[in-house]
């Protein structure tokens, strides 16, 4: 077989390489996704204060920091046995929603669109040669939208900063609640930004995505993968507008049971030093990535907007699974979430209780699972009174960019690449397009987990 290496995979978050092995007809027969960075947040969290987890875990990722912050805040609340008020839950998910909008706008325009344009339309500095199927006029418009997208995605972050203080790595959402209560003035400011963003999504982004799908209809079929989907659920069903949790396997929906999640390090740069410890091992010969292989009931699962759409629409099956379906699902979900945020903000009461004292820990072990922009996110902690004893994180990109496990079962992106025809091996555009539709975030993907003693933890699927 011939090997095609795509390294670096640019226009993503973090460091990634792809190797595709092609056979007759330049069809991909095997693929390896390599996460090329490791920092070790789980090791760093050991010994820190439980309540430091919110600000600390945000530093895992600059584009989805709020997802980690919210998940960690919910986790710390479980440890302390604190239930926050309805208004905190509503405002918190509105802010999380703003992070989703920021991500989804940036992902399509800044990261994905250049795969389909002649780059001189973006800036004279770039020199990427390809022949776009779009007319020069269409490309001019799309390039203008690319620049507009920078402004509108920045507005999403301004929405977050109103209550968060700053973003990336916000301050206002804490385990105790939210430190800046809504009033008429800041609510109006937030809603006015939201109105602008909604207009952009509806009038510019959605039409652009549909135009892309019409212009590149072959990508409706390219990058299908195994069509197994997972979501930990997103947003609280009490407030209207949410995505339910679930697993779709063999076209059947099942509930998510966290105890069925295991991780394989067979092909990842780690070694098990003793039953309770896994440490980095960059010299390991059989490994090709820093990303571990999460498996649910022994199978790999795709997370993200397409998974959420499939689970929410069930039993209606998805019309298509593939690259364009992922891009369309992301844009449609942005439109839905923008509408929900408006409703949630309007539902906030005039007065409320936004800060709750933590007092003393009531649990010494807890798990929090909920979706993040790219799919299911898990934070798990064991505590020694108010100090963190252990902390485990499984991010969505770990699921999607998983390597093979010990049985040789591929991760979702590897599976999506297999069967693809690479028309020009010197310029494997198909690989980049398939990979980017999953919205890779490799700074998130790398972490550690203790393989022993973590089964049997019950957790409700709430957000």
């Amino acid at each position, binding site marked *: 077989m011939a090997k095609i290496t795509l390294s670096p995979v640019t226009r993503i978050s973090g460091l990634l390489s792809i190797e595709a092995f092609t056979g007759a007809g330049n069809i991909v027969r095997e693929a390896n996704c390599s996460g090329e960075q490791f920092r070790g947040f789980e090791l760093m969290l050991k010994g820190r204060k439980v309540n430091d987890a919110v600000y*600390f875990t945000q530093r895992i990722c*600059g584009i989805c920091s709020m997802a980690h912050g919210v998940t960690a805040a919910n986790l710390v609340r479980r440890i302390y046995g604190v239930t926050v008020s309805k208004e905190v839950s509503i405002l918190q998910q509105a802010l999380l929603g703003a992070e989703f909008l920021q991500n989804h706008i940036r992902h399509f325009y800044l990261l994905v669109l250049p795969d389909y344009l002649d780059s001189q339309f973006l800036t004279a500095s770039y020199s990427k040669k390809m022949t776009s199927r779009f007319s020069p006029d269409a490309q001019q418009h799309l390039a203008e939208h690319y620049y507009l997208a920078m402004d509108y995605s*920045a507005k999403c972050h301004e929405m977050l900063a109103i209550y968060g203080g700053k973003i990336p790595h916000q301050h206002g959402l804490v385990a105790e609640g939210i430190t800046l209560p809504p009033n008429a003035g800041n609510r109006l400011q937030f809603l006015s930004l939201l109105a602008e963003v909604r207009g952009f999504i509806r009038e510019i982004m959605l039409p652009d995505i549909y135009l892309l799908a019409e212009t590149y209809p072959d990508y409706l079929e390219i990058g299908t993968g195994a069509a197994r989907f997972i979501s930990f659920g997103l947003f609280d069903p009490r407030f209207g507008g949410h995505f339910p949790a679930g697993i779709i396997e063999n076209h059947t929906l099942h509930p998510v049971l966290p105890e069925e999640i295991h991780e394989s390090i067979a092909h990842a740069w780690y070694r098990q030093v003793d039953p309770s410890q896994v440490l980095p091992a960059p010299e390991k010969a059989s490994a090709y990535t820093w990303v571990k292989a999460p498996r649910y009931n022994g199978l790999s699962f795709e997370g993200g907007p397409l998974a959420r759409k499939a689970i929410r629409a069930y039993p209606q099956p998805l019309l298509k699974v593939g690259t364009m379906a992922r891009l369309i699902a992301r844009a449609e979900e942005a439109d839905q979430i923008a509408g929900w945020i408006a409703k949630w903000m309007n539902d906030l009461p005039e007065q409320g209780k936004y800060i709750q004292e933590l007092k003393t820990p009531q649990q010494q072990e807890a798990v929090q699972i909920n979706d993040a922009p790219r799919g299911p996110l898990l934070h798990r902690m064991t505590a020694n009174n108010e100090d963190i004893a252990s902390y485990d994180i499984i991010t969505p990109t770990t699921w999607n960019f998983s390597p093979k496990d010990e049985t040789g079962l591929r991760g979702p992106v590897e599976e999506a690449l297999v069967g693809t025809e690479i028309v020009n091996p010197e310029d494997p555009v198909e690989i980049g397009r398939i990979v980017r539709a999953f919205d890779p975030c490799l700074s998130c993907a790398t972490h550690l987990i203790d393989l022993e003693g973590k089964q049997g933890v019950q957790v409700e699927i709430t957000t």
Partner: protein
Amino acid sequence: MSLQNQFETYCRTSGNNPSFREGLVNNFSRNLASHSKPPFIWFEASACSGDSISTLNAVKPNLAQILEELLDVRYWNALMPEQGEAAIQRLLTTVESGNFILAVEGAIPTAGQGRYAIPFKQNNTVFTSAELLLWMAPKAKYIIAVGTCAAFGGPSAARPNPSQSKGVRDIISQPVINVSGCPINPDWLLGTLFHLMLFDTPALDRHQRPTLFYGETIHSNCQRRSYFDKHIFAKDLGDRECMFSLGCMGPITGSDCPYRMWNDHLNWPVKDNTPCIGCTEPGFPDKSSPFFTPLPEKQPKPDERRPSHG
């Protein structure tokens, strides 16, 4: 007043001017007429991409437009259209030609022969961030460490630092300008870039950070200073009083956040009723930990585990 004085005065007093970026372009770009666009490399090592995202949050005009009109962006993993071999070639050509501005985001891992951050590989050969930085640094005109990870190690190097990550200045011998922050405020980077292009390296403090932006502590300019001076302290997060009681690092943190604020002058941590956690400082996050413990009582808990393997 010389042009340099004008520019520096503009930077120091512009923290509360919402048209700061616009003003920079309009007032000073004519002085760049004789300068051709310098080649610019944004190099990402072991990072969370937060500094890139924060930079994208600049508005009116947005930073990408400024970079593309005033800088010749030759390599930026997060944004460039090229991928794979074409991207590597672009980097090679730019570095070999020299005289470029190098911005580094993220810390540089040194454990495992640097294999904890591999920006790319080619023909089965792995290129670590450490060796790429060592190759690029001697040929760069200016080197800027963008963000606290690149400047001082930051969260990427937080105790016990499994990847043995270090700041750029600990890897190379060439001078480094530290535009620290977790993440940076885009104004700090843009003002520094303009200074480089118009004049030369700006005045730096003892941590090699431009005094234009980091020269005073947060405490010097905090709106809650009168509470501190009268010993009126917050009891809980969300309170209006001085956050020193809840862990604020303001007294020892160099930054202009109280004036400049964040996300186009909307807010900042103390205005948001939370403490500053000292994110521009060397030693962040460990020296700021626990985040909500008062400064005199902070202590990063001694590491109880055996050292990480490298």
